[in-house]
């Protein structure tokens, strides 16, 4: 009996190693391990053995079964792996991947968020204010009285005589100063509205306004802050040009140009052959503004700046028509 089992094991092992295909392997399994297989036939005879021999022989028989099964499994896995490899070889890996929907943040959001980061690095917090504003905050407190010609620079949408859509984010300066004592270091991002529509103007656009008030700061600091901003937003080689300008709420005031992003200053259509592109307005806070928020203009000094985000995005991404930002054409949005 023991002899038979031993022989069976050896024969099975030999046979397994000779097998070269899965079908023969299956036949071999049935031959040895099947219900009517050789092992079963041997095991059937166990019952006829004497009682005391049964456990011993039974264990050997079982060991034999396990051994053959293991050998078979090893061989089977070898075949399986080769087969899988064959299958992998025939898979056309150039078939396109299963797509997933990809979303895109609006380019304006992307520029805004980049702006937040740059100014956060310079210690500026974000402040907020309403988009529908009072004349006082939008104009009066910013030294733009009712009959001032500077109002011509803002084509204003009115709700009533005294309530309007803010024309800039500067009223947030006023609101912040009215509710907080100095020092202040904020940026105020948001939507603003002007009655104007053409290839370079939309009736709604985004601005970021900055304000720093302290006991000490200067025009020289203003140049520094804006230089950091431009170098991070565009590229560190970008040149800046500060030239005198006029805003009722700053004195001195400056308009800031950057070297043309397209021609880098040699002159092209984008910069009307000047080599420069205007991107923001800035200046030292006008003492009248401090007076209107009850800050002492003798003790406090401030700098402020404001920029149009669409304009920066146009330059950054080389977009020719500002209206694209508000058409929400997916073919446009999905490029960002």
């Amino acid at each position, binding site marked *: 009996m023991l002899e038979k089992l031993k022989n069976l094991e050896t024969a099975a092992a030999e046979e397994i190693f000779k097998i070269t295909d899965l079908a023969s392997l299956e036949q071999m399994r049935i031959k040895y391990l099947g219900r009517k297989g050789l092992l079963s036939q041997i095991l059937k005879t166990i019952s006829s053995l004497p009682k005391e021999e049964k456990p011993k022989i039974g264990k050997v028989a079982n060991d034999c079964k396990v051994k053959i099964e293991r050998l078979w499994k090893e061989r089977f896995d070898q075949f399986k792996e080769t087969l899988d490899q064959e299958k992998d070889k025939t898979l056309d890996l150039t078939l396109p991947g299963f797509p997933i929907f990809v979303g*895109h943040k*609006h380019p304006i959001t992307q520029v805004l968020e980049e702006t937040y980061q740059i100014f956060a690095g310079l210690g500026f917090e974000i402040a907020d204010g309403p988009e529908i504003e009072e004349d006082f905050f939008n104009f009066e407190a910013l030294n733009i009285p009712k009959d001032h010609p500077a109002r011509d*620079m803002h084509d204003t949408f009115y709700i009533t005589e005294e309530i309007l859509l803010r024309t800039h984010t500067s009223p947030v300066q006023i609101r912040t100063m009215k509710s907080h004592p100095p020092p202040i270091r904020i940026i105020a991002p948001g939507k603003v509205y002007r009655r104007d529509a053409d290839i370079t103007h939309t009736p709604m656009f985004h601005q970021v306004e900055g304000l720093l008030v302290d006991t000490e700061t200067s025009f020289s600091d203003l140049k520094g802050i804006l230089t950091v901003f431009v170098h991070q937003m565009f590229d560190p080689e970008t040149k800046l040009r500060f030239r005198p*300008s006029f805003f009722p709420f700053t*004195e001195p005031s400056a308009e800031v140009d950057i070297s043309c992003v397209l021609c880098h200053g040699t002159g092209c259509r984008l910069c009307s052959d000047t080599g420069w592109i205007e991107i923001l307005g800035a200046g030292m806070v006008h003492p009248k503004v401090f007076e209107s928020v009850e800050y002492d203009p003798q003790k406090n000094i401030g700098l402020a700046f404001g920029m149009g985000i669409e304009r920066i995005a146009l330059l950054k991404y080389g977009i020719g028509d500002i209206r694209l930002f508000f058409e929400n054409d*997916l073919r446009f949005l999905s490029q960002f």
Partner: protein
Amino acid sequence: MRISYKFLQEYIDCSLSPQALAEKLIMAGLEVNAIEKTGPDLDNCLVGQILEINPHPNADRLTVCKVDVGTEIVTIVCGANNMKAKDKVPVALVGCRLPGDFLIKKSKIRGETSQGMMCSEKELNLSEEASGLMILPADAPIGNAITSYLGLDDIILDLELTPNRGDCFSVRGIIREISALTGEKPKEVHYDFSEEGEKIKDILSIQIDSPDLCPRYAAKVISGVSIGPSPLWLVQRLRSFGLRSVNNVVDVTNFVMMEWGQPLHAFDYDLIQGKKIIVRRAEEKEKLITLDDLERILTSENLVIADSQRPIALAGVMGGANTEVSENTGNILLESAFFDPSSIRRTANIFGLHSEASHRFERGIDPEGTIQSLNRAAQLILQLAGGKAAQGIIDVYPTTIPHRLISLEIVKVKKVLGVDVTEEKIINILQGLNFIVQKIDENKIQVQVPLFRWDVERDVDLIEEIARIYGYHNIPVNLPRNSLSPNKKTKLRDFETKIKIVFSGFGFSEAINYSFISEKVLDDLADLDGAPLERIRLKNPLTEDQNIMRTSLMPGLCKNIAYNLNRQVANIHLFEVGRCFFSSQTTNLPVEKMKLGVIMQGSSAPQSWRGKAVPLSIFDIKGVVDALMETLCITDYAILPNKTKWLGSHQSCTITVKGRLAGFLGKVGKKIIKYFDINQDIYALELDVDALKISENKHVSPLPKYPSVVRDLAIIISEDFSYQELEKSIREMDLKILRKVFLFDVYKGEQIASGKKSFGLSFTYQSLKKTLTDKEVNNVHGKIIELLKKKFQASLRE
């Protein structure tokens, strides 16, 4: 303000090229919009004189002319008929290239040789006048290049002046700036003329009733003028400023305004009743027909110039038709005055009358230039229109406008600019700009401001003057050295940013729509607009499509769907975060609410070769809300079937967060999609962003250590029961070891009786304390089955 480069040389020696001059002006704050040539390059176009005009042998309408162009006599075939022999005309000779790239060649016209072309104004691009040849003045020098003769070789600097620099709205003003920038002194001028007429006091009186609105009024009378065309030089000067020639007298007043910045007005003296000028406020409802032939109904806010009977001009804005200078005018009264800037501005605004004059008055002119301008005009009128000037001037100037005195601490210049400018340099700069400087002590100067600089009121204004002449580019670049303060970013932006990250991660692209929409949308979809009736209307919308502030993001997003569908874009998944506006009874300003809007069209996943894409259903947008809540760690929310505004369909739900209404979701109803011309199913969602900003303290649960057991169950229940009821009942059993209920299948159809549906449910059981035994699981699972059978009459499905 446009200024001719050639012209300004008459006032100051400026050796800078036009480009270099423009650069200097720009860096001093006078923006130069453009540097323009006054005319085309016209080589070989000369002044010629017609010697003979002969009929063309082969054409009735043409003539053959002999023309003297100085160096030779040429033959030209001509089609015009407004010329006669001896006339001088522009002649384009062979080789000349006329505007429009028209090259003149030697040619034969109907058999006759033509060696050039005599030109009309249009052909030289000077005007639209094309009816005949341009006839030049008789004194035009034969053979002169037409460009230099007509001043077409000049260069114009087109300056865009900021509203504070009213003083630069004149040649004189710009010369002052150039002088300050270059150190070159302006050339001196003297206006000499003789006064041979009557004494002015005998023929005119002036009375100012409103000195607050008119601090100074001066006039001069010239009799016996002959109104006629202006000479070429004056027409050219005016053209360089962008003005048209009218007649010699009007042209002189305009010219002097451009030269001195002082608007002047000429009245027909004979039409002034009572020979008296009264400067007063208009009476209520008083009428005046202005020079543009429109009747203006006045109020006491308007300042008028009147004679003894009636208004004759809207002061500083426009003259009256009743005293207009015409061909028949013989005697004129010249007005030179100073008016209150804001009064002029109000009047100009009310009547929409923005003239060159009002533009200057409202920015503030030089009250000390009144007389000089008047004399300049008188001199030119006598020269060009003849006549006799009355002796003297009437100058009513009851209270002299005082000069502003500003004291400036030298250290403040450094404090504001961050650069050390020496006291000497400061004084030099200010003196160069016509400020009078006096030293007070070590550290302080007193500065007297010239009256034409209305914008300089305080020490910081002086500092700006110093800075712009010193050069902004010479101020160093520094960073603030202030103490650092911790940056407390406002939650609002963080939250907004987070939502945007989440949604772009979910595959949605961000839309930004205008905050205003068309009121018509609300009217047409009135039953769907849940906003209060009181709409926030713009008083002056740009278009009727944008006349009302939005109360929902839905109209904008629906439009975006239509826009994209029209451009064959499919699978439009958009979101927007923006403010909506609601009128309020309790606050001065409307209430602004930040909303999140989401809209979806197409399939729930992109189509691929795996199989057919599954079209969207309401459960997609519901899934979006669940996912959003999970990212925001909000667990206390519910989505309940409810009718909502802005959807108008049966597939609509409200969303509550912590029991409060926060928004809605669902399928967009037929009426709306039809309105926006959309022919596909779209699903939408809108949430109040503030409602999502609940700070739930993040609390991490320990991870289970023991294995879980999953039991599946298929039941058949009546369609009357909703899944939500069923799940709620199970949850309410409060079974400690039930971790999760998951619905994996919903079936209705042939295999099941009508009116019934089948749910495939999967229950996960797990304890945090031990490994569950079969018995424990069976016990709890059995309870659930029992509940389902009892409460929902569920039958188990094998």
